[in-house]
């Protein structure tokens, strides 16, 4: 498939929550480098919750440093506010996997 083909409404807003600032900044840069995708990064849960009450996000990525329990608690909070948001774990800033995870989620949302 063409990775650059637009999928769904743009911009696609993507929230990333993780404890490691340098990793978050790489993820932010990679997402924002893709046309039509926009990242918001945060190290704590509270700004994430505030963000999704103010803007529509397609995806919330859980990044380094959050435990499985914290991920689950965050998932519950975010999906209570927006049942359509996809909360998924991301595994670092490797551009190949990041792009693919986003494409996969957007494809599923389209179906």
């Amino acid at each position, binding site marked *: 498939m*063409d990775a650059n083909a637009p999928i769904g409404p743009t911009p696609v807003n993507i929230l990333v929550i993780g*404890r490691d600032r340098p990793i978050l900044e790489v993820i932010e840069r990679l997402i924002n480098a893709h046309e039509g995708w926009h990242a918001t990064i945060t190290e704590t849960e509270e700004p994430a919750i505030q963000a999704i009450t103010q803007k529509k996000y397609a995806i919330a990525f859980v990044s380094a*440093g959050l435990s499985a329990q914290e991920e689950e608690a965050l998932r519950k909070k975010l999906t209570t506010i927006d049942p359509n948001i996809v909360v998924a774990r991301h595994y670092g*800033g490797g*551009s190949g996997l990041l792009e*693919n995870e986003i494409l*996969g989620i957007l494809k*599923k949302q389209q179906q």
Partner: protein
Amino acid sequence: MSTTLHKADTRGHADHGWLNSFFSFSFAGYYNPQRVQFGVLRVLNDDRVAGGRGFGSHPHDNMEIISIPLEGSLAHEDNLGHKEIVSAGEVQVMSTGKGVFHSEYNNSPDQPVEFLQIWVFPNKLNVTPRYDQVRLDPRKGHNALQQLIYPYPGPAGSTTALAGTTTAPTGTTTTPTGSTTAPAGGSWIYQDAWFHMGTFDAGRKIGYQLKKPGNGIYLFVIDGAFLYNGQRLETRDALGITDVDSIDIEAAEQGSRILIMDVPMKNNIQ
């Protein structure tokens, strides 16, 4: 028993000039919903990097990354202080845990490096990052399966490797880091996964017993050809097999080399 055949020429492909990659599973701009992962095995990239080129510093977290050079050498550097050369005949293992930045460059200015890049989801999150590198004994991998990867053996079997994660590189070793619990060799990862590799003479039969109930096997033919249940697997073909306890394969050509990845089909995060 259930099988999934991935012929070499049906893999994803990206040619960036300096990097020629074939993707067994969805990666980068190649997305195939039927090929996202095989159990906890998420990435199997067959990469060829031109001389003097490579992957600049970038982060990973919570992923077990295994690199197997098939030809040439990689120059590795990370923010844990490791600066290593990984060559064909060696295996590099990283548990990226709570986060690591690394770069991998072709160590040769003019010859390509060819390597398999394999990513496995871990069963433990946010661990202290770890780097290890092991040298394979070619005698042990001739007409026999040589263990490359085994599960974290617990604190008793991991002292050496953990000590080397943050303070000093473990370097290339010929003995397993968890040798008290894994005498067959290789290195360990945070997952109930075992990798074996071997090169076989034509006609050699190989039996493999799965290590854990619920695991599946992903066979990847590196060189030559193998037969499984009458099915011929050519170079770089792969076959995923689930719901079996053991398999028998046969080398169909002289010098056939195979990588057997025995992985959980469901991730049980601790």
